[in-house]
């Protein structure tokens, strides 16, 4: 598992008149695969360019504005400055105003998790942590991250404070409005008994370690295999004269450092 490098946000938890300075670290990391696009002929990396649909010219960054598509092919245009001015002000505060039962929150509303670490005043942090542990409550409130204000819940988890951003109720679909779900038939008693027996037979403890991403493993194996065989090396522009001398010195130093 990885350790987050830098806090993504610093600020203060405020509960009434109490302030707890904190740093926020990412807790969730998506571990998929990322490939780079290469040119088939010579395996050199490709880069993105923004191209005008009308005349196929490459548009430089400074000539790009943003458009909100009001209806098909009809845009309201914004400059970067206009959007900047409209951004909510992140006042670097996590405002908590209610203590609740953590498990009363519908897991469907959980968006992402962040580690809260103490900043400057660890005593205040520990006090909040211990108070939540003792009362077995979580604290609810709000946080503004980048351009969005989130409902947030702060809980004590294995000796640290974890902040979860939540989704607003309107961000979660209401399943009862799906047609397929409107007229569900009741199963017969026999069917239900049988199904319940299967469930019982397969009951166990949930352990996340049992789950592995099979596609990821297969690609990793393929990478290993390809590494043993032929790989493509990206050609670097040739090293200039002066740099060559440095490389000689560098080789010596690297050897010396190896001996140390």
């Amino acid at each position, binding site marked *: 598992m990885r350790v987050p*490098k*830098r*806090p993504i946000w*610093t600020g203060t938890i405020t509960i009434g008149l109490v302030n707890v*300075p904190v*740093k926020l670290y990412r807790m969730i990391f998506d571990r998929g695969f990322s490939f780079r696009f290469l040119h088939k002929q010579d395996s050199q990396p490709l880069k993105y360019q923004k191209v005008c649909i009308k005349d196929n010219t490459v548009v430089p960054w400074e000539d790009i504005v943003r458009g909100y598509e009001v209806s098909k092919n009809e845009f309201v245009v914004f400059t970067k400055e206009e959007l900047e001015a409209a951004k909510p002000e992140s006042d670097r505060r996590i405002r908590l105003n209610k203590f609740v039962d953590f498990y009363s929150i519908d897991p469907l509303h959980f968006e992402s998790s962040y580690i809260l670490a103490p*900043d*400057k005043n660890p005593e205040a942090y520990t006090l909040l942590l211990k108070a939540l542990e003792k009362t077995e409550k979580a604290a609810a409130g709000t946080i503004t991250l980048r351009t969005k204000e989130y409902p947030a819940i702060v809980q004590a988890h294995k000796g640290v404070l974890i902040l979860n951003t939540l989704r607003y109720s309107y961000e979660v679909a209401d399943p009862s409005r799906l047609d397929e779900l409107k007229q569900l038939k009741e199963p017969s008693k026999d069917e239900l008994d049988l199904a319940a027996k299967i469930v019982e037979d397969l009951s166990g403890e949930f352990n996340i370690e049992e789950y592995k991403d099979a596609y990821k493993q297969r690609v990793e194996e393929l990478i290993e295999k390809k590494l043993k065989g032929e790989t493509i*090396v990206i050609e670097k522009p040739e090293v*200039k004269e*002066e*740099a060559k*001398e*440095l*490389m000689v*010195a*560098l*080789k*010596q*130093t*690297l050897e*010396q*450092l190896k001996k*140390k």
Partner: protein
Amino acid sequence: MTRELTKVEFTNLKKVMYPALKATKAQIIEYYIKIAPKMLHALANRPLVLTRFPEGVEKEGFYEKDAPQGTPEWVKTFTRYSETANRNIHYIVCNDLDTLLWLANLAALEIHMTLSSADSFLKPDLVLFDLDPKSPATFGDAVKIALQLKQELDALGLRSFVKTSGKKGLHVIIPIVQRYTFQQTRTFARDIGTKLEKQSSLITSEFSRRPKPGVVFMDYLQNSHGKTMACPYSLRATPQATVSTPLEWSQLKKGLKPEDFNMFSVVLIEKEPWKGFSDVKQDLEVNSK
């Protein structure tokens, strides 16, 4: 297929950085390459502050605490909230050759380090005696004071290390265990300073009045968190490309000239006077009884 020797891509190698010596950036990088084996251990895990001179030492340089934009992901940093700046500062930490060379390529001629390491920022592991001769006091006077200071520290059973500041003065350093606060190391340095002051009219460690001319100023207040000193073997932005050079105590005698130690001469020295420096961890109070 040549294996890459460094992650750093060197740029502007022909740019003249020390015009008086016609020394180019390539030569500066070469200096740091050659000195790295002696230098890196002393920098390890310390938050660094840079003085960068992108246009060479004759043009204005700038101080840089926060890792600049475009800092590669492989460069380690140490994040600390700064009350004065009211934001997080991402100090650069240099634990490997690549980072050192990246700094050299940034024209970070002067590399300064804190007296505490990133893992214990508020508990220093070095005590610094910064001996700064105020004209007409000379480097020779700083040498005299440094030798007196060494006697004093020897009597307390403390091993000390000396280097030129690279400018006019000397730095005397005691590596200690990470147990004391800066207030404690400051008091320790001030007490020693006051004691020496009584022995010699040549020295002052007084902070409240301006250092008198003609004395060696021993600035005990340097022992504070966030304060930095030039790293051992850091180049300085002087016309002669002087180096803050670690010395053996036996080298400290009449006639020693700090300007003899520059980017070209220091790499020729075979000795490593500060060998083992990073492994010394001394106890202040036990020794002082």
